[in-house]
């Protein structure tokens, strides 16, 4: 009745461990929400908040019909006729940015020069009135407008969200599952069986790769279809960057979880590890805004490197060969924590 398995390296157990890991992840509804739904909600929310609107039409007031007519000739202004008292009130409540007052021999502009929109209104209004009065441009000029995809905020944001999501799902995914298994004495039971220990850890990385493929396709597919985010670099290379980033964050998750005995302890460590990167790695704004003395630190963070590489690929079409610095940073952040984690890992 005994079945004899072929001798040599047994990969059935690696397959079973990986499959088990995937089943357990997919049976956790909260995990599904944070991994798949949350980044999309974030992209929608931020995409709406920072969408590029057509240039604003600036509301202005004027005291005579002639002035209103002159101002209305410019498409950048919406002019209303009102007397000086009403205009002053409208200025105070912000319903107009500028009031043009006919003073007989000339015109006076009443506006707040600390408000950039009001200064713009002053320039447009003056130009419109001067043109109406017969001024001609000394130099012929024409406008070439740029509303290209790839330079919008959403284009900047999507690679940042992708990096943040890969970091979160890899670290939480590994950290919680490992510490949970340790707290429930399951780790101890596993090492009491003939299971090769490396396969247990490898199964986490493999199942992460499967989840990664789904996560990346869902988030980027959504960004492409809904926002038309560009992919200027080769998709294969983007895939390589995602895999390397996810391995890096998995190794960090492994390290953070290598000793902790309780979920509370590992949660604290996770947040302490990820917090600096959420803030400084350029998910929502460029990390170049941090002062120069912080830059070496900011640039050495794995999430900064991951996001830089993703933006390089997606927005600028940069090839892997031209992004050796971020790739090397990621590789170091993968190998060093992994080696330490395996060495200090607490199996019971």
């Amino acid at each position: 009745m005994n079945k004899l398995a072929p001798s040599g390296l047994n990969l059935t157990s690696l397959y079973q461990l990986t499959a088990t890991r995937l089943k357990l992840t997919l049976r956790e509804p909260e995990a599904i929400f944070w991994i798949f739904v949350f980044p999309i909600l974030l992209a929608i929310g931020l995409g709406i908040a920072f969408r590029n609107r057509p240039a604003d039409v600036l509301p202005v007031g004027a005291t005579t019909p002639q002035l209103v007519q002159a101002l209305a000739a410019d498409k950048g202004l919406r002019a209303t006729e009102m007397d000086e008292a009403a205009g002053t009130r409208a200025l105070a409540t912000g319903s107009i940015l500028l009031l043009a007052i006919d003073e007989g021999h000339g015109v006076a502009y009443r506006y707040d020069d600390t408000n950039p929109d009001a200064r713009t209104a002053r320039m447009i209004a003056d130009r419109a009135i001067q043109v109406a009065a017969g001024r001609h441009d000394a130099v012929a000029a024409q406008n070439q407008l740029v509303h290209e995809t790839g330079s919008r905020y959403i284009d900047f944001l999507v690679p940042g969200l992708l990096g943040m999501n890969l970091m979160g799902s890899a670290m939480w995914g590994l950290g919680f599952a490992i510490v949970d298994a340790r707290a429930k004495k399951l780790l101890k039971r596993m090492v009491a069986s003939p299971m090769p220990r490396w396969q247990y850890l490898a199964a986490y990385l493999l199942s992460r790769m499967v989840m990664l493929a789904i996560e990346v396709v869902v988030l980027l597919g959504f960004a492409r279809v809904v926002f038309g985010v560009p992919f200027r670099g080769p998709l294969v290379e983007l895939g390589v960057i995602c895999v390397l980033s996810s391995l890096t964050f998995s190794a960090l998750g492994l390290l953070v979880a290598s000793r902790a005995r309780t979920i509370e302890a590992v949660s604290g460590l996770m947040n302490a590890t990820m917090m600096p990167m959420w803030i400084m790695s350029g998910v929502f704004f460029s990390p170049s805004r941090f002062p120069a003395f912080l830059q070496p630190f900011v640039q050495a963070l794995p999430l900064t490197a991951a996001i830089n590489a993703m933006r390089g690929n997606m927005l600028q079409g940069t090839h892997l060969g031209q992004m050796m610095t971020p790739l090397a940073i990621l590789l170091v952040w993968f190998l060093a924590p992994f080696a330490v984690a395996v060495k200090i890992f607490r199996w019971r």
Partner: protein
Amino acid sequence: MPIAGAGEASLRIRGLHKAFGEVRAVDGIDLEVKPGECFGLLGPNGAGKTTTIEICEGLTAPDAGTVELLGRNWKEHERDLRQLIGIQLQETQFPDKLTVEEALRLFRSFYRRGIPLDEAIGLAQLEEKRLSRVGTLSGGQKQRLAMATALVGDPELLFLDEPTTGLDPQARRHLWDLVDRLKLAGRTIILTTHYMDEAEQLCDRVAIMDHGHVIALGTPKELIAMVGGEDIVEFAVAFPATHIQESARAALDVEALKAIPGVQSHRVEEALHQLSVSELHTAVPRIFAAIEEQGLHLSEFRTHSATLEDVFVRLTGRNLRDE
């Protein structure tokens, strides 16, 4: 097994020591377990049972001493040994969201040879729960699943650490039946327990442990014979109203009781006197007579067959359960 000098012992422990800081959890233990035997380590919590069994399982390194399983040792033959033994640990929680079948398939995949899943599920009588998630199982069913994960590799040596702790009486019976069937199938089993009835029921031989030492070793029958009698008489005395005098209070003459033929020993705890007695039928009338003679009344009187509990009490002066 071609290991010279291994003899036929399935497990051999020599001079085992293990301390955790100041606490000497295992303090010089020698044991041998024969093939096909069901061997029990019985003792209160903290006696060193789990430390001993975990050293045998290769999960804890001893400070001193040697452990030989199936003619092999952990240092040189860990890979082989993991394939050859089955282990059920105290308080393992399998993932709630895995089904019984999935958990067993996972563990089965670790072994080069073993029994088919159906057989393991059948052994543990979990057929109806095969597709249920672990989180929905009762305590007894979870424990039988743990047992099944220990059996999927068709082990030559099976370690069970407190297999019935925390289970209700019916679930314990159920688990005992399972162990009985494994014994009938000729498996070598080493188990720990702090239930004397469990050791008595299941084990061919028992080592009673206390404070890191083995204080008694033998078949349950041999151990019980150590008490000196097959039966235990327990009684309490009251004083008749007419005799309420301080002098009478101290007057239960223990020596007179111990002089009765068949009474082996006496001990008193919280006003309850215990005599270990052989030949109960002739001793009991004489005990009655002796108490009567001393002008005392019985307020309680009962007898039971001696158990391993009595052996432990006799050896340590404490109850197994008093922890």
